[in-house]
């Protein structure tokens, strides 16, 4: 039987081994990493679904573990993303300045993830969270930007610190660090306080408004194989904390009568909807495919928050389903972009085009991923959004519903842009020699493609597992599901039937495509503009200024939040300079004055 403790030690041990193997040869080290991750994933999957993991500890006596359906749901998704991404390592590592440490930090962070979701002790939760943060923080700067890593670390640390303060508030009131007992043991003002602190942690880690600045920076600049981990796996830590706060702490505050929802939850739902709107608007503007997907992650984080705020069974199930669907979709999309970036060296949309001819499988993977992301059947994202929409309407949260629908429509506007820009259109001459990704990279691509469809067609097993989580953590009614259908307040969704119709449609289209005359390939330069010969094909790329009129509407406002944080950092620096001027003066007299001030102050106070 698999034991958590052994899994953790195994990962730490393999991390060290992978360092030396990678040093020897980065390919061998990466292959070793794949097997190590696979071993952990398979162990978890084999025993975890039925809660058969061994949680006893013998070698690490200061840790204690317990297994929950909720924790397992997160851990299996994240371990899966880690496994999938590890297949990319052999082809990427050589480009990184400190490639030897890449696999080491990657495996260590996975150990942190497993610990975080299996521990039943608050301080250990914090231990694992911090471990994840610092190990991943050193992975990000291997990509394009160091500032991205600082930003990621700063926001994550802010989140962790809020979490830790919350933990100590709980400890002060309950007297122990046990997670279940702690969350159950607080009430009144304390619970509001802890709720706020936990939500800050959740927002920071989930990368939602207003703590989202790090998200595009980190996702956009991280090493290509690490972006899927960030977006598909690590931000979900925030969702976990969000569930603890919204569902488990659930502070009793003023209730908004019209929608029968506590003010706290409504505020979070509102923040979630802001996140959806801002994420969507910013994604529409973005030219870099990875940053675009990062903003889409921000908007999806908003959906997750809305779902867990609505406090009913469908919403809760929808939120969890969305976590799974988005993890698969964003991992799929980021991995496709990583494959393109590996072949071409860029992720800027206006520099790319026509990749479908060279990388058809990658194209298909991206297509399926974004269909799920946009919430279109027959992919997983549709079912989750369908559940969330039901819950929002059911509650009568009109304002939120507007944002949720806006985000859904908006995602059509942006997710198809990379598809068109990267994969469709005409190809540039410099990419004539590009080839499809190697077989090892196609393995995870196929698996994720399959799962994206599976989650959209056969919801039964997933809903069943989510029902276990509902039963374990809430008093909500379970969601009814058969093999192909899900039933909610306003009817039954037959995902299987929809998929069938969709499949038939695709088949017909394919037949037409086969039968029709082949289209003639035209090169970009094969044209004249106003009788001038075009000398630079890049200017003709259609994705340049694609949504220019729309972007102009909010061009100025789009930098507000970034400016705010820049200003904040600047102000902190100025305070530092002032403090230096006041306390670190070269003039001895200044120090003397401080000493005198303190003495006089004390004597004055005591004399009074």
């Amino acid at each position, binding site marked *: 039987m698999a034991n958590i403790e052994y899994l953790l030690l195994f990962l730490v041990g393999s991390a060290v081994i992978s360092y030396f193997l990678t040093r020897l040869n980065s390919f061998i080290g990466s292959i070793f990493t794949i097997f190590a991750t696979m071993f952990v994933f398979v162990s978890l999957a084999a025993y975890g679904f039925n809660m058969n993991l061994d949680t006893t500890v013998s070698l690490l006596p200061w840790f204690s573990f317990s297994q929950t359906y909720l924790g397992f749901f997160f851990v299996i998704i994240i371990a899966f993303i880690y496994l999938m991404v590890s297949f990319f390592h052999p082809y990427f590592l050589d480009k990184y300045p400190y490639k030897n440490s890449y696999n080491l930090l990657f495996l260590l962070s996975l150990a942190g993830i497993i610990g975080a979701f299996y521990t039943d002790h608050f301080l250990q939760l914090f231990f694992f969270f911090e471990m994840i943060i610092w190990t991943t923080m050193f992975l990000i700067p291997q990509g394009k930007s160091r500032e991205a890593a600082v930003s990621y670390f700063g926001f994550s640390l802010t989140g962790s*610190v809020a979490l830790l303060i919350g933990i100590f508030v709980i400890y002060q009131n309950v007297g122990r660090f046990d997670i279940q007992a702690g969350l159950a043991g607080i009430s009144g003002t304390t619970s509001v306080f802890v709720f706020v602190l936990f939500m800050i942690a959740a927002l920071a880690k989930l990368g939602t408004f207003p703590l989202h600045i790090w998200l595009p920076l980190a996702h956009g600049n991280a090493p290509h194989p690490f972006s899927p981990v960030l977006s598909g796996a690590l931000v979900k830590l925030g969702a976990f904390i969000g569930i603890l706060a919204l569902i488990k702490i659930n502070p009793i505050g003023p209730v908004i009568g019209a929608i029968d929802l506590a003010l706290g939850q409504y505020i979070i739902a509102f923040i979630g909807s802001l996140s959806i709107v801002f994420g969507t608007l910013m994604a529409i503007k973005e030219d870099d495919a990875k940053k675009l997907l990062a903003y889409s992650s921000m908007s999806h984080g908003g959906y997750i928050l809305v779902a867990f705020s609505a406090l009913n069974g469908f919403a809760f199930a929808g939120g969890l389903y969305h976590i799974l669907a988005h993890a698969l979709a964003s991992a799929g999309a980021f991995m496709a972009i990583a494959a393109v970036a590996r072949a071409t060296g860029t992720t800027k949309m206006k520099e790319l085009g026509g990749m479908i001819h060279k990388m058809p499988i990658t194209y298909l993977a991206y297509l399926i991923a974004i269909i799920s992301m946009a919430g279109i059947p027959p992919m997983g994202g549709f079912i989750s959004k369908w559940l969330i929409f039901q819950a929002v309407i059911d509650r009568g949260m009109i304002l939120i519903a507007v944002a949720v629908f806006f985000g859904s429509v908006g995602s059509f506007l942006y997710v198809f842009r990379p598809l068109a820009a990267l994969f469709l259109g005409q190809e540039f001459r410099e990419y004539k020699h590009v080839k499809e990704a190697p077989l090892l990279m196609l393995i995870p691509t196929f698996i994720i493609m399959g799962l994206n469809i599976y989650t959209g067609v056969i919801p039964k097993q997933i809903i069943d597992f989510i029902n276990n989580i509902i039963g374990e953590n809430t008093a909500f009614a379970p969601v009814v599901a058969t093999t192909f259908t899900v039933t909610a307040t306003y009817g039954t969704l037959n995902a299987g039937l929809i998929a069938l119709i969709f499949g038939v449609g695709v088949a017909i289209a394919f037949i037409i495509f086969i039968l029709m005359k082949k289209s003639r390939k035209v090169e970009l330069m094969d044209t004249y503009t106003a009788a001038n010969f075009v000398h630079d094909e890049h200017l003709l790329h259609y994705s340049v200024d694609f949504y220019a009129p729309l972007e102009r509407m909010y061009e100025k406002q789009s930098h507000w939040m970034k400016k705010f944080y820049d200003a904040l950092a600047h102000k902190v620096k100025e305070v530092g300079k002032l403090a230096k001027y006041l*306390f670190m003066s070269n003039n001895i007299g200044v120090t003397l004055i401080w000493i005198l001030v*303190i003495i006089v102050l004390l004597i004055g106070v005591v004399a009074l």
Partner: protein
Amino acid sequence: MSAVLLIAIPLLAAFISILFKKYSIYLLFAVTIFNIANVFLATEGIIIIGGFSPPLGISLLVDTYSKIALLLVNALVLVIAALNVKAYPKYGTILLLVVAGLNGLVLTNDLFNFFVFLEISGIAAYLITASNKKPITTFRYLVIGAIGSSLFLLGLIILYSMFGTLNMVDMIKEIALNNNYQELVLPFTLMFIGLGVEAKLLPFNSWVKGILGHSNTFSGPMIASVYASAMGFVLGRFITNLFNFEGMLLTVVLVILVAGIVLSDIMAFASKKSREILLFSSVAQASMIALLFVNGIIIWAVYLIIANALSKTVMFMIINKAQKDVGSDEVKSLQGLFANNLVIGIIFTIATLSVMGLPLLVGFTIKLNFLTELADAGQIWTIAFILIASVVEGIYFVKLLLKLWYPEGNLIKVNYHLSFKLVFAIIALALLTFGVYQAPLDKLDNTVDTVMEVVNNG
């Protein structure tokens, strides 16, 4: 062996070393090694000097607390001197004085005797900082240090005039009988400020910027690690046993310390020079240590002193060596320092992560333990301030680390001697080991400090 030798031998050796200047540094090695052995052999308890039974005469107090302090101070002096034996060979005599002075500070149970040792170690410190070749900063240090020790002496005189004794144990007894804390506010404030100057607590520490900001591989770790830890230990002794802050004085001290932590981290955040970043982080740590002592969290303060001394030794030496070779300590000009010095880079990273208090390293264990004890004491606001400061700290350290790891433009060349790497690697390994395996840390508790026991049981 008697603990008196811990002070007498270095003092004697200091005089002898003047005759054999060339061999003074080797004499120092022998003396520190002897001292370390002596610490293990010394019997615990009160040691009476000259046959005067207390409260008359001078007595020394040996307990686990002072043994830890002695071990740390002597071992660090040995290591730092050994690593600098080529670059700074002429400081043997001064270092012998340092050892005598700091050992005396830690051991003595007599307050006036304490003042004498404060002056001895102070003079030695001024001489050490003279190696910075920035006389004006040393001069400022000297003046401020003199002000500090005079304030301490003034407070001491007031106490003596009130209670008529200089024996610490005896004084504590008298104070307990007197039980009017208001009268003690003035002397205690003066003494706290006096010690605060040496322990570099904000706002009495303006000398630090000049001294550590221009430090070298020798003076940097000596001041930031050896002196900081010795002063931390004695400040702790005074706070826990003599001062026992109460009422308004407690509030003011807490505010000064918490503000010291937050402001120092913010000042480090605003700094662009690597040495300044390190020195402000040291100032924050000093305030943190004092804060723990004020809250009665002795053992974790002790561990924090040790962890901090080890990490800061490594960090200051690495940065100061680089500064010496490159000629600038601007973070910008040290970019990519570790690209060619992988081992040094990993060690520096480990030390930094430990200071930041990140998991797998001992700094994290210490941080969580003292935060838990603070929570037990109901100090949730203190915790909040400490943690908010830790965000600022985290950001500036990560910025520093990433700049040092990732080169921009030309690679800079700094060569670290093998002995540096070996010693640093051992320290890094220790930080890592105790970060993962904390059982040994749980063996000791707040009873390491036995002054109150002596007071109660005679």
